């Protein structure tokens, strides 16, 4: 029995019996803001490999997770798209006090699928002849709030108002722009970045001083308080290697 398959089976058996920290291996259920889906999948894979814990991921809108957690949804940790909901969960006694931390800083870009529309200073906002400018609903999404703040600082909020279309979240906003139905829009840098470069179209990287920081916070929920895997995941998110990875996906330090 010296076939490759037999060798793999042997290795797996060895790892299972001796190699892995099997005595503490657990499962963590994480509710993750939709905008963080891509980096989180990569992180979870590494985490499982490094620790032997399993991660169950749910992606969705932070507001819906908030409502579900209030009504007993079985999540151990929440990776929110903002800092308000984790704070409110903590204040409501639904999360472990002191467990909150910022795992990523969101950055926005003004982006168009067309290669020539958006200039490096975003002057297209004043001069451009576009029909629809997409942004996430400021009431719901911190990325939308940031976009509104940029328009207000440039004094364009009231003049552009008739041309604004709102995505329910940043993912839908991206879809509006990517499909060309909105000529341009404020989307998350992480959505259009690939290997440190804007993937396609044209973009203006909005300076961070034009909008309040988008602090994406994670929090340990009461259900996960005694789950070692949950604590391990939150620690893992703050390790230097993972922070580098997150930056690589287009989030601020």
């Amino acid at each position, binding site marked *: 029995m010296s076939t490759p398959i037999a060798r793999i089976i042997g290795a797996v058996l060895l790892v299972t019996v001796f190699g892995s920290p099997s005595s503490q291996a657990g499962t963590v259920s994480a509710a993750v803001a939709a905008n963080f889906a891509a980096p989180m999948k990569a992180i979870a894979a590494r985490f499982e490999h490094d620790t032997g814990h399993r991660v169950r991921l749910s992606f969705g*809108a932070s*507001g*819906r997770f*908030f*409502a579900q957690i209030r009504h007993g949804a079985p999540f151990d940790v929440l990776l929110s798209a903002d800092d308000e909901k984790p704070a*409110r969960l903590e204040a409501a006694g639904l999360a472990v006090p002191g467990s909150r931390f910022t795992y990523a800083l969101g950055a926005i870009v003004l982006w168009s699928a067309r290669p020539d529309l958006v200039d490096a200073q975003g002057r297209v906002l004043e001069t451009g002849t576009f*029909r*629809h400018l*997409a942004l996430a*609903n400021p*009431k*719901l999404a911190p990325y939308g709030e940031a976009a509104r703040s940029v328009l207000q600082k440039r004094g364009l909020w009231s003049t552009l108002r008739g041309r*604004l*279309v*709102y*995505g*329910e979240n940043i993912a*839908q906003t991206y*879809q*509006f722009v990517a*499909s*060309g*139905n*909105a000529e341009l829009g404020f989307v998350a840098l992480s959505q259009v970045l690939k290997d440190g470069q804007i993937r396609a179209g044209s973009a203006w990287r909005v300076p961070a001083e034009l909008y309040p920081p988008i602090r994406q916070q994670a929090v340990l929920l009461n259900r996960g308080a005694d789950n070692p895997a949950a604590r391990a995941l939150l620690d893992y998110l703050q390790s230097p290697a993972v922070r580098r990875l997150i930056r690589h996906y287009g989030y601020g330090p």
Partner: protein
Amino acid sequence: MSDDNLSALLLTFKLALIVTFLLLLLGTPIAWWLARTRSRLKGIIGAIVALPLVLPPSVMGFYLLLLMGPDGPIGLFTQALGMGTLPFTFAGLVVASVFYSLPFVVQPIQNAFEAMGDRPLEVAATLRAGPWDRFFSVAIPLAAPGFLTGGVLGFAHTVGEFGVVLMIGGNIPGETRVVSVQIYDYVEALEYGDAHLLSGLMLLFSFIVLLTLYSLDPGKRRTRR
């Protein structure tokens, strides 16, 4: 009630009224054709009409967004007409809702036409009524319960539509922000009071619609002879 809520309610009912009207106009000939044709295309057309019954609204919304977008066939057509593109406009919602609610109107009318059979039309023909005359003086009155059911279902389904509107509406107040989207926003924004108010109204509305429909059940009326 806040202006936002009132505006969303009015917009929703305006949309539903226009869509129902268009659906009756468009659905009647389709239902007639489906009820009477012996063509082999019947299966295909019937399946296409019924698609929204089984298709997730997100799929409909996604494809409509692409089809009506600047590079999609519908988008190219509307741009050639000088109308621009349809997403993010009230007209766009109307078009999408017509697609989405079509089976709810076509099927009851088609069933009514089928239940009627050939005989009343033959009788009308022997009484000198031409094809159009027969259609309006006999087929439509005899299929009236089907039209009522189809109209009510089409209206209610448009009012309750969410996924497609969310995908192509752009959430513009007074233009595309209908009640269902407004409720979603309230829930997402943790404003549960307003969410309760509008949700309660929708629940009441849906119940009244169904109650009306069931008490108008043509089967029931027939047995009361």
